């Protein structure tokens, strides 16, 4: 027997190491009871816990040393660094056993992935890179062996705020809310500027963890003063963040020379420690929380047949009724697993609705935008205000994109809630056993609904108990990032006539001017329409695909759990019938054994930390 009754008392706090210990015991228990299905899933959970995927976005203005910092943190020259050319694509760097890079791109509306050499990245990611290689690149994923990344840290190098992100602030902030953390990069050449602080204020609201890193301290003799000034600026604005000074160049040099003193001087080891403390451990704790939920589910399914059998043995008079009830449950679960069951209809209908809802949202938003553009063009001369005009159009488009993805997120969560609610309210079947009810198909779903909490006045979506968060979050963020990257590639070029200013102004005959203005407006209208069409096509492709992915994921999520429940019921039915066939002594012995197992499993269940005040055990 693997469950040790003398185990440690229940944990007051979520310690990932302790949770992974509990998981190991849970897996052993599942294996002992031949529940390979449960054991396999808990193994996946354990794996995820040991390698918690943590998405850290590195963000900052142009040329502040973002790519260099990613390289220094990874301890390897992954992202191309150039005096002049800036990074123009999004690069996600994560730990892997062997180095390899994948470029995700969309060509003619079709997404594809290709493997490229790690050393050739510059052709795909820098501005003015190879035009063919650069085309349609959404995202570049680079896996490298690196001690700082092998626990699941993913660093995302982004183009500068001054470049891409400023045009897509709305989308950026939406992405930030999906990332686990943000490292904001500013260099030691000068103090923080107004635009940077304003961005930080917003990022702070959008993202749970933000670090401010001051780079290039090997170059500026007065970096300590800059650090102090930055600290004051942040304090004055009530942004409670401590800037961390680093030199990426020194860390690379230190690694080349294997010089630990120099490495310490670079400040990178301290930054890594801070990342671990402030970002990684938080993510790990959240991951541990999910693991505990999964473990509780698994152990309960293990306990179901034991306690059902025990109830029947303890009260032979009610045995027939008990068996009947188990049979009814078995049938009910079988019905639930059928294609036409109510929950799967709800799921399919929900996603059909979501798809048309998002389509509709995109369509109306685009129509509104175009109408607005037309109205604006009526009293604006594209020659004099093209810049401001395009900026507004791009910003508006980026809001549309952000809203579409938010609608998907919200929609998926709502569908999941409704399924959980439906399953927990399924008509009760079979006679009442009276008193304790060990196997309750409905009760297991209760509490799996999404919980809405208020954190600092902000409505946040609480973790779904059984791992739906694992489907959402990170992946959604990466999709959004990719779309953003591609939007940047869609140019909103100035109409031809705008380049030629009506310079002679007052001295020119009025109707020539009017005709020219009319032509400029017409061209501007066409250019904007083209841009909106392209973005729209791109975005609707991606939203459709991501709705499809969520649909599949959610169906699997519930189907797997129904299967597990079903197996518990079948086991209970079998063992109960076998027990009833035994003689009196045999039954007593069996009951004694069942009681022992039940106690042991309950003890393990009691050891599971209670989370967020939600106690469902």
């Amino acid at each position, binding site marked *: 027997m693997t469950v040790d009754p003398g185990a440690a008392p229940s944990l007051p706090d979520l310690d990932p190491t302790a949770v992974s210990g509990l998981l190991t015991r849970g897996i052993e228990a599942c294996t002992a009871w031949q529940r390979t299905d449960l054991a396999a899933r808990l193994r996946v959970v354990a794996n995820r816990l040991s390698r918690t995927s943590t998405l850290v976005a590195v963000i900052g203005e142009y040329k502040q040393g973002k790519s260099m910092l990613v390289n220094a943190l990874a301890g390897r020259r992954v992202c191309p660094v150039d*005096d002049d050319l800036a990074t123009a694509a999004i690069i996600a760097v994560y730990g892997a056993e062997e180095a390899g890079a994948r470029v995700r791109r969309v060509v003619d509306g079709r997404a594809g992935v290709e493997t490229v050499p790690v050393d050739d990245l510059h052709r795909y990611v820098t501005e003015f890179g190879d035009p063919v290689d650069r085309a349609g690149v959404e995202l570049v994923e680079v896996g490298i062996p690196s001690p700082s990344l092998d626990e699941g840290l993913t660093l995302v190098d982004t183009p500068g705020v001054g470049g891409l992100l400023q045009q897509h602030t709305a989308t950026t902030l939406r992405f930030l809310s999906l990332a686990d953390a943000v490292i904001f990069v500013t260099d030691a050449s000068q103090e923080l500027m107004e635009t940077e602080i304003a961005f930080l204020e917003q990022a702070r609201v959008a993202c749970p963890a933000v670090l401010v890193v001051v780079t290039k301290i090997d*170059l500026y*003799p007065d970096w300590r003063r*800059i650090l102090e000034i930055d600290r004051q600026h942040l304090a004055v604005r009530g942004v409670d963040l401590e800037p961390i000074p680093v030199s990426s160049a020194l860390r690379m040099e230190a690694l080349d020379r294997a010089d630990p003193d120099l490495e310490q001087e670079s400040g990178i080891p301290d930054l890594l420690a801070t990342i671990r403390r402030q970002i990684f451990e938080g993510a790990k704790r959240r991951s541990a929380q999910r693991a505990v939920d999964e473990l509780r589910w698994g152990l309960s399914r293990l306990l179901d047949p034991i306690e059902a059998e025990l109830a029947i043995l303890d009260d032979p008079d009610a045995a027939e009724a008990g068996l009947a009830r188990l049979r009814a449950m078995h049938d009910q679960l079988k019905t639930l697993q059928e294609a036409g069951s109510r929950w799967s209809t709800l799921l399919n209908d929900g996603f059909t609705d979501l798809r048309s809802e998002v389509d509709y949202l995109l369509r109306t938003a685009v129509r509104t935008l175009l109408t607005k553009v037309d109205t604006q063009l009526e009293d604006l001369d594209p020659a*004099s205000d093209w810049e401001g005009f395009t900026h507004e159009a791009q910003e508006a488009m980026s809001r549309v994109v952000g809203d579409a993805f938010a609608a998907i997120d919200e929609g998926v969560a709502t569908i999941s809630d409704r399924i959980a609610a439906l399953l927990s309210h399924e008509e009760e079947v079979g006679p009442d056993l009276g008193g304790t009810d060990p196997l309750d198909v409905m009760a297991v779903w209760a509490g799996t609904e999404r919980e809405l909490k208020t954190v600092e006045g902000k409505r946040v979506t609480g973790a779904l108990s059984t791992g739906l968060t694992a489907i959402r979050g990170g992946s959604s963020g990466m999709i959004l990032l990719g779309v953003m990257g591609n939007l940047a590639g869609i140019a909103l070029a100035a109409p031809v006539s705008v380049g030629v200013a009506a*310079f002679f102004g007052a001295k020119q005959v009025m109707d020539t001017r009017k005709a020219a203005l009319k032509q400029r407006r017409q061209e501007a209208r066409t250019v904007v329409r083209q841009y909106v069409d392209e973005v729209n096509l791109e975005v609707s492709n991606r939203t459709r695909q991501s709705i499809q992915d969520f649909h599949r994921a959610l169906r699997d999520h519930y189907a797997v759990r129904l299967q597990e429940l079903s197996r518990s019921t079948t086991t209970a039915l079998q063992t109960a019938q076998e027990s009833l066939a035994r003689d009196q002594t045999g039954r007593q012995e069996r009951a004694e054994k069942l009681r022992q197992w039940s106690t042991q499993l309950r003890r393990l269940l009691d050891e599971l930390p209670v989370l967020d005040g939600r106690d469902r055990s």
Partner: protein
Amino acid sequence: MSPAAGSGLIDQVAQACQLAATVAGGRAAAEVKGIQTRLEEPLRVAIAGRVKAGKSTLLNALIGERLAATDAGECTRIVTWYRQGPTYGVRALLRDGSDEELLFTRDDGVLDIDLGVLPARDIEWLDVRWPSGRLARFTLIDTPGLESLDAERSHRTKQLLGIEEEGPSQVDAVIYLMRHLHRSDAEFLDTFLDRSLARPSPVNAVAVLSRADEIGAGRLDALESASAIAERYAADDRVRSLCATVLPVAGLIAETGFTLREDEVARLRELTAMPPAGLDEMLLSVDRFCAPGVSPLTSEYRRDLLLRLGLFGVRFSLRELQTRMDCSSSQLAQRLVEASGIERLIEMLDGHLGARSAVLKARSALSGLRSLASELEAEDRAGSQNLRAAVERVEAGAHELAELRLLHMLLTGAVELAEDQTEEVARLTAGGDPAERLGLPGDTGREAERTEVLRRLEDWRIRAAHPLTDRTTADACEIIAQAYERLHAELATGSTGHE
């Protein structure tokens, strides 16, 4: 030498000012006085850019003295004018219109101005008078950074440049410092440039890629990298339509080059005497360079060198001293000035802006008079109309203004000519003696010059009349032809030329 282009125009504008003086009374009279004196003063060049773009350092480099305070933090908090004066003096111009002389001391050359009991927010601007050759041609204006965290400070700069308020700008030209081409840089250029030209103009703005030595992590090839970047920026149509060119300048290297002291060179020499391995180790980072005990030279001295030269400047100077054993102090100073790129900027100021200074000033004055006319409209309708008519007469009659607009169109690409033709027009309108304006050798001779002028005049007339030439280009060709016509007349009467 010929009179600078536009001296006749100045007279006409001065006459318009006299008319304005008869119309305006009270406060408006003071404005007219301001416009009049401004016509006689050197061209006003503002140095603008984001916080910490290196504005004060560049100003020092342009004057050739370490006057303006420079510091790691945001430093220039009040708009400060540096202009030629017979004696040294600093004056505060207050919001209420009064002014007050201020006491100042110099700390290692740098002005330390004692504001006394004056609160900084009551000061509109500071007026520093300084006897200096360079200030005889330009009045330089140091500005607080745009996008400063202190909204009040960036507001002051925008006020000065006429960005936020209606009305004419107080400056005639601008040197805009950019560290990287950033969205807000382009927006800034867009809003700054004179609205009377309807579009931002490369005729009175020069962009500088500043702190060029810091590009490429202070490596010895930093300035080559900076040049390549500046060239790429300058080739960008958007940038070209906003400023004449983009020049890479390492302000700190220039400032120190102009003011390098013997004792500093001696300390650099002391460093070159160190074992190479130890020196390399020191040059890894600023902290290592200043660490106590790593060199016979005290860490305070080393820190001073670093503040004066930056890591790049130190590396550069050490290499110069090491590779050229006979390198004297003045040679090193000269090498620093050459490497900094400041000389090209000075050339640009003298040539591109200096040659047009009369026209630029006239244009500023006319736009001042125009806004004065609108102000007067309520109290003296007839006088206001007279003044406006006078301004319009000058504007319509002044070929210099037409040529300035023409140049603007050529440089912004609104009118497209072949590159050599654009150069020809730029030379023609820049002023100087006829040979210079024609791009001919100085000893060409009057007769040959006249023949050449007639030939070109003919060419441009043909281009203007060509049926395939569009309207705008035809107008441009006509302005060019007229300019040649005037040059021909000048050559005939001998009103300009070799005196």
